[in-house]
């Protein structure tokens, strides 16, 4: 009996000390400061997440926006970039796969239509500075055929010289093969 009591006592002590520990650690965390809006008398607050409807279906890791654009500010309205900023509005037929919302790197939409979307924010001068080849591809291939925006990291960002050359070579050799095949089969 004596041993049971001591066990009980010990358990109580442990519980108390655990509580004290968690209380201490939580008090050590910095309290997030309440942000006070300075001078925004008529600031329009969005009532709900503009991406809510989209993300009800497009919610898996592949469809979600994880890349730089998830934190990007649309320079045209100074608000965070939303799904519809780039993909446009959908129609009631959207679930039947009609060509309504913009799909990037898919034949359903012509290259110029796709790239026009990107060019509403990305300026030609900056693109040229980043890589001269932007200049000669903008009318010919979709931005999304090299860039991937949804994943955390765009695979072509931070490519080294060799990787860049490989990208050119892979695409252009395929193009050559296709061209020759088309020439051979009338």
């Amino acid at each position, binding site marked *: 009996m004596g041993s049971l009591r001591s066990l009980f006592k010990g358990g109580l002590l442990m519980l108390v000390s655990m509580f004290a520990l968690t209380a201490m650690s939580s008090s050590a965390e910095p309290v997030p400061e309440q942000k006070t809006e300075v001078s925004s008398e008529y600031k329009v607050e969005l009532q709900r997440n503009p991406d809510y409807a989209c993300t009800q279906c497009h919610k898996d890791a592949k469809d979600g926006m994880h890349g730089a654009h998830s934190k990007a500010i649309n320079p045209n309205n100074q608000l965070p970039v939303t799904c519809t900023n780039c993909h446009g509005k959908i129609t009631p037929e959207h679930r039947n796969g009609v060509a309504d919302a913009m799909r990037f790197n898919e034949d359903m939409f012509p290259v110029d239509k796709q790239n026009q979307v990107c060019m509403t924010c990305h300026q030609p001068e900056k693109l*040229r500075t980043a890589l*001269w*080849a932007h200049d000669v591809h903008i009318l010919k291939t979709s931005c999304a055929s090299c860039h991937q925006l949804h994943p955390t990291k765009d695979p072509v960002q931070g490519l080294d010289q060799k990787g860049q*050359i490989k990208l050119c*070579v892979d695409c*252009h050799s395929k193009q050559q093969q296709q061209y020759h095949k088309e020439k051979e089969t009338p």
Partner: protein
Amino acid sequence: MSCSRRHFIAGMGAVIFMTGPVNRTLAQTMSINGIRYGMVYDETRCIGCTACMDACREVNKVPEGVSRLNIIRSGPTGEFPEAKYQFYRHSCQHCDNPPCVDVCPTGASYKDAATGIVDVNPDRCVGCQYCIAACPYRVRFIHPVRKTADKCNFCRDTNLAQGKLPACVESCPTKALTFGNLDDPNSEIVKLIENRTTYRAKVHLGTEPKMYRIPSKHGEIKG
């Protein structure tokens, strides 16, 4: 001192006499077995990817800081989104009449009689750099490790020796480079030169370069 017109003309005659008929050895002028390698660089096909530069460096073990082959990009001309770029291949032209060979005091620089390829024998090169000064195309350099003159030799001791095409030709994704025997009328390269408009750089110097170029459709042809 008076320099009469008569003296001047007489002097000119002497200069012409000395520079005119250059003594050429058999090895310098004629190809044996009818092989005279040359190259066509199609500026309209080149996309400036520089895969050829990389391949050359790798195959020929060219150290960083120097290069046997450069693709020089110029431009853009025109306005976005129609901006155009031009590409120019900067490498040895394999002159049929190579000034770099003429000036070499040791015979290290030579034109290979069997192929027409201009090459350097590093064992004989003393690094005097006469050839670097003499080359009007400015394609020669001192190899930083060997300390001898170096430049493109169409992969003569690497890929060609293994029965392959030069590294740049092999690696080009757009088939902008054609390599072959200029003395073979049935070769692809000769047909290409016959059927397309080509130019060569600085032909007025009499170097007879064997690097032919199909000019870009945009901008000036700066031969």
